[in-house]
Structures are given as C-alpha cells and as structure tokens.
C-alpha cells in the first residue's frame, strides 16, 4: 500500500469481504434440520472414522436448534459471528477455537469483558458453533492443500503420488511472492526466506501448522515451501540452513486455511439442500508498518 490511509481502508475492505459461494436464494420455508442432524450428516459423509477424543464438536449453542443457514470459517471472530448472524446463518462450522484455547475456557481471557461479550453475542443471536478441524484435515487427499493450490491457480500442477507437491511453470521467487500476495490477498502476514531471483519450479504446499518432520521429508524434493504457520526455531532455521538455498513463503495460519474453509462450505452444500451454506473469511490478521 502506498499510504497508511489506503492500508487502513484495505483492512476494512478485507474484513468485510463476504465470500458468498451460492447464488442468491429465494427465502424458503424454515428448515426442520437441526444442528445435531446436520453435524450427524457431516460425520457420515466425511469418510474418516470419528475420533475420540477430538477437538471437534459443539462449542456453543444448542444442538437441537433449527438450522437457518450455515457459515464455515477458519477463525470464528466476533466480526465473523456478526456477519453470519446478519446473513441469517445460525450454524457456524469452524476450524479454530471460539474462546481462544482448545479447551474453549478462555484461558487468561476468561474473566475478561471481551470473552463475556463474545459469549453474550452468541447467546443473543442464538448462534450454534461446531468445530470441525481434526476430521476435515484427516481427509485424503488433504482438502486444505487442494483448496490452497486451487486458490493459487495450480490445481493442474499437482504431482501424483506426492503429498502436497506441485510442479509449476518456472518462476523467480520475487514473482512468486507477488503472485501469492495478490491471489491470497495477504497483507503484513507474508514473510519469506530465500534469494529473490532464485528459480522456483517445485513447491510444497503446507497450510496450517508447518511442522519440522513434514518439511524435512518433502523440501529436499522441492525448491520452495509455501507454509501456513512454521515455527521460527524449527522449519524456519531449517530452510535458512539449506545449501543451495531453498525458499520458504509463510502465509500465516488463517490465510493458508481459508481456501479450505470455502471448499468445506461447497462440500457441505453438496449434501445440504435445505439451507444456504456460505464461507466467511477473516483475511490476514496482520499489517506491516513497512509495506
């Protein structure tokens, strides 16, 4: 962004983007589908044995509530919850916790007015929140990887029998960064390692948590890794130490997973004719004072 003003405007634009994936619908009679029935259907269709224990399940609201509409999201922020309610979607299917910890107990924020206000918002708008992360991410091939590739225009380049490897038309790293920045609308969260003019041909896509074992096993077969959330004492210094240098492009967790959440909406829609199913995005949570 040229100026801080335009960056700020961009922030608000990005925050209010509603990824509507369905054609406008004519208001239908209220569905008789409950949240419990819908999530039961998801469990049936997911094709992965249900795990116990799992972080997946209801986190807020009543399972018996009638579903008026469904919104998928990576991060169920207050803004996402408000937009879902405004669109008439009372069931949220989310990848990440609502109350800041996987225990959903608020952690250090539990006695805080922000935590209380978020809980009150959910109650007042009669929202139901169901977390669907472990099982969505257990599908093979990985939905988040395929959706990220699709968002980058690379679906046709997937290497068969390889986990998250794509052979793209050769491109310089700086050109690749521009492509990623534009396609995924990353703001301050985009960070990279490598040499700007290095050629990139084979890429590992690693949305979400980019851990060391999966990086060590796949990066030797690639020029670059497009990461979600790599730890800066794990995958980051590993890539930094490679000779000749390899590249790492870190997107941030939310940006890397949002295409997958949109794919999840499309998948749920395919077996849920009763109600509209949309995907809501938060976008990159970060801005940079330097860009």
């Amino acid at each position, binding site marked *: 962004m040229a100026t801080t003003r335009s960056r700020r405007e961009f922030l608000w634009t990005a925050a209010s983007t509603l990824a509507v994936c369905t054609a406008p619908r004519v208001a239908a009679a209220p569905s008789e589908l409950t949240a419990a029935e819908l999530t039961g259907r998801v469990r049936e269709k997911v094709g992965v044995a249900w795990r116990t224990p799992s972080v997946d399940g209801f986190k807020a609201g009543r399972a018996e509530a009638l579903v008026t509409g469904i919104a998928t999201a990576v991060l169920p922020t207050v803004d996402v919850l408000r937009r879902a309610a405004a669109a008439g979607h009372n069931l949220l299917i989310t990848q990440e916790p609502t109350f800041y910890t996987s225990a959903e107990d608020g952690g250090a924020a539990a006695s805080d007015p*922000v935590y209380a206000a978020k809980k009150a918002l959910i109650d007042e708008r009669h929202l139901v929140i169901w977390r669907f992360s472990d099982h969505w991410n257990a599908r093979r091939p990985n939905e988040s990887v395929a959706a990220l590739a699709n968002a980058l225009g690379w679906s046709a380049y997937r290497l068969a029998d390889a986990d998250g490897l794509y052979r793209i038309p050769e491109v310089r790293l700086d050109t690749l960064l521009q492509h990623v920045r534009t396609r995924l609308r990353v703001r301050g969260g985009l960070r990279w390692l490598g040499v700007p003019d290095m050629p990139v041909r084979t890429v590992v896509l690693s949305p979400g948590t980019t851990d060391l074992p999966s990086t060590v096993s796949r990066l030797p077969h690639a020029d670059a890794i497009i990461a979600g959330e790599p730890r800066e004492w794990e995958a980051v210094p590993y890539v930094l130490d490679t000779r000749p240098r390899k590249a790492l492009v870190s997107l941030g967790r939310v940006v890397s997973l949002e295409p997958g959440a949109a794919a999840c909406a499309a998948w749920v829609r395919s077996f849920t004719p009763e109600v509209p199913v949309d995907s809501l995005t938060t976008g990159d949570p970060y801005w940079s004072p330097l860009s």
Partner: protein
Amino acid sequence: MTAKDVVTRIQQRLAESGIAWRAQTVDTFKAGRPETTVRGIATTGMATLDTLRRASAAGRNFVITHEPTFYNHQDQTAALEQDTTYQAKLRFIQDHRLVIFRLHDHAHMLRPDPLVVGSARVLGLTPYASASERNVYVVPETRLRALASDIARRTGGRQIRVCGDPDMKLTRIALGPGYGVPPLTQAVDVSIGGEAPESGGQAEYALDAQALGRARAVILLGHMMSEDWGMHEVAEWLRGFVTGVPIEWIPAGEPFGAPRG
C-alpha cells in the same frame, strides 16, 4: 579453559544467584567436545549455519546459543540423520572444531530476564518500565501506527507484524520474549513478543477486542528480532565472571526478507 569449565562457571554463578541447575533442561552441549580449549565465546539468538560461519571466522570456537541448533526444542537428531542439510551443518561444526551449548531455560530464570532486558533496550522501552509490574512498560500516549513504525526503525526488523487498529491510542505495553506474547489483560493495551500462533495466541483476541470497541493490539517482532538482543545482555553477563577469553555477541539477525521481495 575448556567449554566444560565455562559451563561450570555459569552453573556456579547461577547457584550464587539462587538458581539451581535444573534436572530437566534443554541447556546442554549440542555438538562438539566439551573438553575443547576455548579460544573465544560467541553468544547468539540462534546457531544457524550462517551464525556458525561468522563465529568460526572470528575465532570464537565456543558458541552459546539461545535457541536450538538442529531445528527442534530438544535438538533431537535421530530423524535428521539422513538429511543433507543436517549432515552439512554437523560437518561444518566438526571441520571447524566448534562446540555448541544452549543457554535457554536458565537465561530466562535470571532476574531481570536478560532476553526481555535486551528486547526492551533495543525498543527504547527501558526508561518506561513499570515499577510494580514485571515486563510492563508505560509510555507517553501514542498511536499503534507510530509505535509500530518506531519499533521497525529501531530493530531493523523486516517482518514485523501488527494486529490492531493503526489509530488506536495506547500507553501500556507488555513485553514478552520469544514464543508467545503476554496475555492482553484489561491492564495491557499492546502485547509485544517474538512469534505466536494465530489461534491460541493473542491475535484473535485482539481482533475480537477491536470489534467490541475495546482496542487491543499485538506486535510480533519475529523470534530473532525478539531474542537476539537478549543474548547481547547474556554476553555482558558472562564477561562479569568468565575472564581470559574474548566474548562476542554474534547476532543471528532477521532471517526474513524485505516485505516486497
């Protein structure tokens, strides 16, 4: 004086400060022979290959690093044995007869924590330290945009990330080292740290607080931009009781490229 002797002196100094050496700790030798005679000591935020090259070229054959050498907290290498990046790093260490020791857990136990002291110093926060609250700084009222720009200028960090309204006013800053940022309580406007998860960290809380009209922000410096300077403090500390060998801070530096690559 051997590397082992230096570590013994560190342990003695900690004991004199009431800090007993922990039975379970990542603070161990990571590579090289502890019996090696020390020609010079380098402290650093992270023993990257580049840091090791610079240490070796400067004649500092004993590297004291805050973060791991082999890409995981426990520096476990079994899964890396066949990896060429690991092999080349290990070979470099052996060829140049370097010795690497990690000083993480016990460095954070010192009071004040030198990793926070170093970070506060480079950020210009030291004069604003709260008298009563640890790692809290109360600055004259400013706006988030101004604070973030000032931090970027002072650290030379190329990939500082900010979550929060650029126009929010702030006075109370919590500063944490390395991974995770201090909790955004009602008494903290901005929490600053190295790196933090986007879920289960504080960023999503800051987004919610902002949406609810209670401005809060998070600034992530990057792990090295957070802790490298702390190892400068550790070098100073070592000079107080390890004499006879040069002790130099060799920063690992900002690993990430400029925002527009």
